[in-house]
């Protein structure tokens, strides 16, 4: 019988992510967590997560940095803020999830063709170019880039949209697109 080790030795821990979180205004609250589990209790997605929000915070603090960044948990968070308004320690858990998503994207630790970061990037690019997003085009792009084998399963949905005259393949663009671009590029030059 083969055994798989699921715990870590102290020497394998890496607290860099914890210190990084402490350096962020939205992340420093992590130090106050009392591990009560209220966040996991109110989270509508915790039952689908590999680590519940409470567990995730514990893992960050103990130095399981890669386990956290490569978890599904951060991508399942849909930013509903149920945890944030319920946390007795007033920890901004939703913002922490956002910060972890940004870190994971930055370090490139997510499955290839994984749709959430792809959606985020596609969206970002579309707004950079046009100042507005065109929903139907965005979704079409997402399907092509991540899930082309399932493209057919979207046909009924597309037909429903067509029938109710809600499908528009027109590219939306604001007259202020160049100003929007200036703002976004100004941020880039300034560096993060």
């Amino acid at each position: 019988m083969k055994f798989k080790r699921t715990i870590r030795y102290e020497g394998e821990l890496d607290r860099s992510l914890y210190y990084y979180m402490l350096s962020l205004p939205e992340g420093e609250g992590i130090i106050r967590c009392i591990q009560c589990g209220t966040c996991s209790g109110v989270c509508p997605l915790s039952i689908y997560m590999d680590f519940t929000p409470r567990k995730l915070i514990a893992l960050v603090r103990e130095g399981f940095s890669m386990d956290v960044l490569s978890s599904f948990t951060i991508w399942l968070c849909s930013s509903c803020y149920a945890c944030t308004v319920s946390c007795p320690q007033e920890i901004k858990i939703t913002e922490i999830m956002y910060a972890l998503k940004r870190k994971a994207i930055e370090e490139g630790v997510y499955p290839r063709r994984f749709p959430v970061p792809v959606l985020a990037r596609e969206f970002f690019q579309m707004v950079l170019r046009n100042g507005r997003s065109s929903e139907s085009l965005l979704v079409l792009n997402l399907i092509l880039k991540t899930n082309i084998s399932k493209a057919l399963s979207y046909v009924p949905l597309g037909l429903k949209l067509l029938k109710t005259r809600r499908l528009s393949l027109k590219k939306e663009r604001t007259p202020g697109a160049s100003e929007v671009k200036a703002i976004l590029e100004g941020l880039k030059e300034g560096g993060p």
Partner: protein
Amino acid sequence: MRYAYYPGCSLKGTGKAYEKSTLALFTALDIELVEIPDWNCCGATAYMAVDEIASAALSFRNLVLAQEMGMKKIVAPCSACYLNLIRAKKIYLGNGPAREKLCKALEKANLEFDCSALPEVLHPLQVLTEDLGIEKFKERVKRPLKGWNLVPYYGCQVARPYDGYDDPVYPVKMDLLLEAAGAQVISDYPLKTRCCGGSLTGTIENVGIRLNFLLIKEAKKRGGEAIVTICPLCQFNLEMYQGKMEEKFRMPVLYLPQVLGLALGLSPEELGFQHLVYKPHMEV
């Protein structure tokens, strides 16, 4: 009453029934909404995962545009837009490191504005319940929606984290409006603000659909004949993914202004009922 109107991308796309009904309802109530002509995307939730400051800067530009129009208040019907506009304002008025970066970006783009008079951000629900008032609305009702069993579903981001004008978990303002419209409101619906999953239906589909399935199942169990929403993404998820659910509900999912507009005597056509997949079967 006069407001800058910030539609956001969804109300011009799949949520066009929301735009139609909001404009029709407000016109009928003599509330003027003036669209910001060159508004841009608010950044939505997807943007936050890439760049927090960029998201704030995008939203902030819309506040500036509303100010240029001479407006003191800006109405944003989409939950994500509503949240992002408030967030941008909070970052600007705060004193964290994010503020510095935001200010730099605004400076580079040569945006000029009066920082002491940034417009107030309101959701249509707030305009109706606070600026107009539920009593005033009730006076205008011509066709009470007798016998309509409606489930008010608020979704998440209108209720929290920023609102403060209603409870973040069990809000009641929409319930009160629907009652004023003469409907039978299922007020004890416990999933009022339980998340629909937002963009998860498009990314991790099985989980996204499951969340919406639970919302509709509970609404039906409690005798709901239609769900009433105030967010374009909630409406889209709840309505469009019913075909992919394990049980075929055919539950109508309406926008609040569509329902209120009917009670004021507006026609279903004016209120964008033609854009719904499942039409309510109740009689007006």
